[in-house]
């Protein structure tokens, strides 16, 4: 079982992103489960959502307290308590930011993890470029496809197309592809080094 926790703010598509990841995993034949931590979707309030991916039916309905991966859609949440709770040393983390971990004040936190598993991606900027709106959900998933072996970029695009149509689908898919390339390049630079 691979468990992902998303952190973001109401209005950023945090719940949708978890659902799209579940949809992408489902399209590859995995069992998947996605759900929000709470449902009073107030704009701007901190929101969490969860996604589990497994080769077995998923029975548990508890929140993800020991994530294998964190997807942080809003870097302004970074210094809130509990954001990194339960992430093991083998874990993955993708942060929506154009800044490095050092610039984000996270050098100490990232020490001890595999450097190529903890990365940043400027998802809001990519979304603004390709979608016209700074909605980071789809590019975060594109980046996630490059960060972990769990789902392919193609499956993320399949999930995007199952939810959206027309220009919105195209913009989200383009942003996801751009984020995939960005993260793939980051990983390559770190693994080559």
């Amino acid at each position: 079982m691979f468990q992902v926790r998303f952190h973001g703010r109401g209005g950023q598509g945090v719940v949708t992103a978890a659902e799209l990841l579940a949809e992408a995993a489902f399209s590859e034949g995995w069992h998947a489960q996605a759900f929000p931590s709470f449902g009073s979707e107030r704009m701007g309030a901190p929101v969490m959502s969860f996604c589990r991916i497994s080769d077995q039916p998923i029975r548990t309905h508890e929140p993800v307290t020991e994530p294998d991966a964190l997807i942080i859609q809003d870097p302004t949440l970074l210094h809130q308590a509990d954001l990194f709770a339960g992430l093991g040393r083998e874990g993955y983390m993708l942060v929506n930011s154009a800044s490095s971990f050092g610039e984000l004040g996270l050098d100490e936190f990232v020490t001890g993890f595999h450097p190529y598993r903890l990365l940043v991606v400027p998802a809001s900027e990519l979304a603004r470029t390709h979608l016209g709106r700074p909605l980071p959900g789809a590019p975060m998933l594109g980046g996630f496809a490059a960060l972990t072996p769990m789902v392919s970029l193609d499956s993320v695009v399949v999930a995007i197309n199952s939810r959206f149509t027309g220009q919105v689908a195209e913009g989200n898919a383009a942003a996801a592809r751009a984020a995939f390339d960005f993260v793939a390049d980051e990983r390559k630079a770190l693994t080559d080094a």
Partner: protein
Amino acid sequence: MLKQIEGSQAVAAAVAMCRPEVICAYPITPQTHIVEALSAMVKKGELNAEFLNVESEFAALSVAIGASATGARAYTATASQGLLYMCEAVYNTAGLGLPIVMTVANRAIGAPINIWNDHSDAMSQRDAGWLQLYAETNQEALDLHIQAFRIAERLSVPVMVCMDGFLLTHASERADLPDQAQVDAFLPRYDPRQVLDPAEPVSIGAMVGPEAFTEVRYLAHERMQQALQVIPAVAAEFANGFGRDSGGLVRPYLTEDAEIVVVALGSVLGTAKDTVDALRADGQKAGVLGITSFRPFPDQAIRDALTPVNRRLVVLERALSPGTGGIIAADLRTALAGRPAPAMSTVVAGLGGRAITSKSLRGLITKAAAGDLEPFSFLDLDTALVDRELARMRETRRSGPSAENILRDLGITASRIG
């Protein structure tokens, strides 16, 4: 067809395939997605039903009563305070013997206001005369709705299908959606036992005095006894038609040789099963007894499911009856009266969205196995927080509102993770 789908959307699809003729609803979290989806289907012409937006939950169920009494298949959905607001109509539906199906997306009841899951809402209507079936997964929620119309119409009783708010309604899971032909083959046209028809006028729900009221109530109880036969029969027919087990009265999991059996309803059953598997790997013989039918309460099925090896029951209560404690535990004691019953611990857990984690369940079962679990307790209670508020109340007459006091004491504004 297998789909990755949100629970509410899956339930809306199932309800639509049951061909309801009248749907009336008033929005309330976390039920809203279900009726939103149904209204969209009606608007698009995919579902040939009358969809009525009403001004309150009381009106929602009253409209369903009117529709059902004229022979229409009627459906509504609600949660929490919405269910309380329709309470009088809830009793009337059962009293009139109208087979309305209603989803309750289980949510806590205020005050203090809380939109998250527990079972306080449905359990407050325990004695109303409705069947109450609790879903463990979204697949089961979907399946139970199809079965609910069948059961309701066969017996002329209303059925509540209870599914955990957010945990199921807002969870995207894999579900096998049947096709229309399968549902049509399973669910015949509604053949009402009573119809309000201008061509053949009758009265329903008129005054009955002391001369016959007891007998009318006796019949309500008798229909519940019949339901104890019909629920498993319909589940068996469903298994034949759809190829999977769903519904029924109880669901035992590894209970046969279990020393400790966790008894619970709803979505926590999956978490409990995972916990039991992990404990068994460590040599602790534990099992789970899921109760699908809370009303009628399946006394005999529970007696049959338990064995003399089961020396302790741990009853998870997702609702609280202040002053007595456990609601399910009380029914279990009645069911097990007069025979050597296992020891029982009642644990209030998961109120108002507090997560029931496998870590906590593991601790609970381990404690029960050691004989250290109290007869009555609250899972993961912050005792120090409670004690500080009790102290404030002792020290100051005007100590203020407790809920706000303890929030201030905690110093948090955001929800916790687990």
